[in-house]
């Protein structure tokens, strides 16, 4: 028997009021909010944040033998994306890293792969659509990571499941296009419902359960109407229907089924049964039973707390700019150089893992150095990981000249607990609210992209938000 050993979610700091869309365009939008990844996030960087949280709550000493990454919006094609996550988690090179990308169903692939090998499944998505359209307003950005493993370690056991697969063109996008197309909605509803019925029926039979025994029913998928209809016909208890977070986060594509699962795990009791029904070019039903290990492995902040700690004041123009839909006038400054591959590979531990070096006297050098600042001793350092260490702002400045997709740049000098000083950018922050003495934590981000190469590195963000990776 196998199941979920630990979980972690990342909901980005910003949300967009759907009314802001209609206010700008005269149509589109709707009610509530959708989550929006920051200008310095992509599916890979958000995947890292979620993975750090899931691993923080996994059993001590656990090293995933594989990272499987799923998204509909990969940062790269032809280059594996999971390897960047692997590097940011400082996994040994003997651990594998694979992508399962392109569609919402890819998430099932990642979970299957991770499940087979007792590894980490990372599902992450940034969902957009043409301005004014339903994909734009209904979409959401988020990332989730699940550590899969043995039943002996599980907080939720895998007790059954079933697939119903069919080929039909309901939603599609040719690579390179910026938005998907959808056939008229009534066709998708017609195609999905029999598949839902088949998959749910087969899954329940495989677990020896009836639908009324299901305590938490998650139904999700990009076809909103089919999902709503499915929820009605499945016949679960009304109290079992799980809120799909459409009013706060939106539909986060490949991450959404897992995000709703995290929300359930945040409050489920031992013995509860969960059904995760995903409509994605077919229907998959996954059945789980919560164990009594759940209490000890809940992250410090729930998904709902994370959402509550976000900022719903994002301007629609900022959303469009950050997603590359609105090309803004740049400052009269040169664009950054592309990060060079040889130096990036040499400094892999620093760039991806935020490893500094500590000399024999305990002085932490950031970036890592070979020569001790005080003693001059060469190569007598040990590597020390700063990614989960908290820091305090020693001083800072707001730079209105530097190039940024979201100016101004806030540059801070931060002092890590236990030693180490580092000059870095602050993110998820209001420049006017920064003060010397503020506490910050490190977050993995994409600084910029040049010549098609993404420059990944770390920034600091205020600790006022909920959900810190290393917090127990």
């Amino acid at each position, binding site marked *: 028997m196998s199941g979920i050993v630990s979980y972690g979610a990342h909901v980005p700091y910003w949300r967009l009021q759907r009314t802001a869309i209609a206010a700008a365009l005269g149509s589109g939008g709707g009610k509530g909010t959708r989550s929006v990844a920051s200008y310095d996030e992509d599916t890979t960087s958000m995947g890292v944040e979620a993975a750090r949280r899931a691993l923080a709550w996994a059993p001590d000493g656990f090293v995933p033998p594989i990272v499987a990454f799923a998204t509909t919006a990969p940062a790269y094609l032809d280059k594996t994306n999971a390897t960047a996550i692997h590097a940011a988690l400082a996994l040994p090179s003997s651990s594998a890293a694979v992508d399962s990308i392109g569609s919402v169903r890819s998430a099932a692939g990642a979970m299957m792969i991770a499940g087979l090998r007792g590894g980490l499944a990372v599902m992450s998505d940034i969902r957009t659509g043409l301005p004014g359209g339903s994909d734009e307003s209904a979409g959401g950005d988020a990332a989730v990571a699940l550590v899969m493993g043995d039943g002996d370690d599980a907080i939720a056991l895998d007790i059954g499941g079933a697939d119903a697969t069919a080929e039909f063109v309901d939603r599609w996008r040719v690579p390179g296009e910026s938005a998907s197309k959808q056939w008229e909605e009534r066709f998708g509803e017609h195609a999905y419902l029999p598949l839902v019925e088949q998959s749910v029926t087969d899954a329940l039979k495989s677990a020896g359960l009836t639908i009324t025994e299901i305590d938490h029913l998650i139904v999700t998928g990009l076809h909103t109407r089919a999902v709503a209809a499915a929820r009605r016909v499945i016949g679960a208890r009304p109290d079992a229907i799980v809120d799909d977070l459409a009013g706060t986060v939106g539909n986060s594509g490949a991450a959404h089924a897992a995000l709703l699962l995290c929300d359930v795990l945040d409050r489920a009791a031992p013995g509860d049964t969960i059904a995760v029904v995903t409509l994605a070019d077919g229907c998959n039903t996954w059945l789980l039973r919560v164990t009594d290990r759940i209490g000890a492995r809940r992250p410090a902040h729930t998904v709902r707390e994370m959402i509550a700690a976000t900022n719903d004041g994002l301007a629609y123009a900022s959303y469009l700019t950050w997603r590359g839909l609105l090309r803004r006038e740049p400052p009269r400054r040169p664009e950054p*150089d592309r990060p*060079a591959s040889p130096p990036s590979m*040499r400094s892999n531990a620093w*760039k991806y893992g935020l490893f500094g070096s500590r000399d024999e006297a305990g002085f932490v050098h950031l970036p890592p150095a070979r020569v001790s600042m005080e003693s001059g001793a060469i190569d007598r350092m040990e590597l020390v990981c700063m990614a989960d260490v908290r820091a305090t702002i020693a001083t800072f400045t707001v730079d*209105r000249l*530097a190039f940024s997709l979201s100016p101004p740049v806030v540059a801070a000098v931060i002092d890590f607990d236990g030693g180490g000083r*580092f*000059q*870095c*950018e602050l993110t998820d922050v209001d420049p006017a609210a920064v003060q010397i003495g503020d506490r910050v934590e490190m977050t993995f981000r994409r600084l910029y992209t040049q010549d098609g190469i993404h420059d990944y590195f770390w920034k600091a963000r205020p600790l006022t938000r909920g959900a810190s990776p290393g917090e127990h």
Partner: protein
Amino acid sequence: MASHGIRDQVAIIGMGCTKFGEHWDKGTDDMLIESSQAALADAGITLDDVDAFWLGTMGSGLSGLTLSRPLKIQHKPVTHVENFCATGSEAFRNACYAVACGAYDIAMAIGVEKLKDSGYSGLVVGSPANDGTSATVTAPASFSLLAPAYAKKYGVDAQELKDVLTRIAWKNHRNGALNPRAQFRKEVSMETIACSPIVAGQLGIFDCSGVSDGSAAAIIVRAEDAHKYCDNPLYVKALSFVAGPASGPIDPSYDYTSFEEVVHSAADAYAQAGITDPRAELAMAEVHDCFTPTELVLMEDLGFAERGMGWKEVLAGTFDLDGELPVNPDGGLKSFGHPIGASGLRMLFECWLQLRGLAGDRQIAGIGGIGGSAGKTKALTHNLGGGPGACVSFVSVVGSELG
């Protein structure tokens, strides 16, 4: 540390300096020709008389060919040097050593920078291929960190510190208004300075030196040969250059209120020149006012004011043109402009004029030796390159008399 200095071993016998500014119609070649010709004419020699050249430029040309090609120098040594904003000073320093050691009789130190061809706002410095992790802060942002740190350490409230910074910019523009070679030749009111659009931290546009084109040159000979060319040479008393370990940004004990590199280079320079009380012995100083808080901190690092008291001295006018120790009498980087490779030599050019009574409207009273009068006969130049906690610093002392 064994830094013996070459006090009174070499002398400047001629200098030239172009106007600094936006020279759309002049390239690097044009400015090199202009400043070298002016220096040669000033010394009463020809290009052929020069035995060796030191060329300082950070981004306007590589190799000695940058000078030998336009000037058609006939098979002489031309060394290209760079050391961030101390580039011009570095050219001068190395030319002096070459003459002091006897390898050459006549050397030229020449600096140039053509910043206005890039088309970008602010200074742009290229960097070698890297991993994309170094901080993206601009120079104004980096130096803006000095201001809140200084205010906090010495209990100066934010508005008062802003007034101090404004006073520094005002002084330098006032001096530059008297200087026909300066980029900016108008006085600027304190209100305009204080209300200028913010660039980084507390720093507005008027707290930052501008981007400028220019060139300057000096001719150097052994001290004992100086009087063959010139009745009133300037003797080089001290040359100090320090490159720090760049530990400030990684050391929690660095508090952003001082440039340790400047303190070291000043101490070395004062020892070489035999100066024990800079404020009393110097007639003037040209310092690296890339940003207003930099000049404030330099007053203390160079020993012109007690720690924590520099701000009071600024407000009291101690460093004004008619003050006890005029600082940046030619307008400084702020209003003269900062073409990187030329600045160090431009600073020496002001010393060249002032110590010999040739500074016209800007002439400092009380300079000794002019018309036989007693008074101060030494001047200091200072450049720094890099940023707070991670920089290089140069200090020179020159004087109109031996001893």
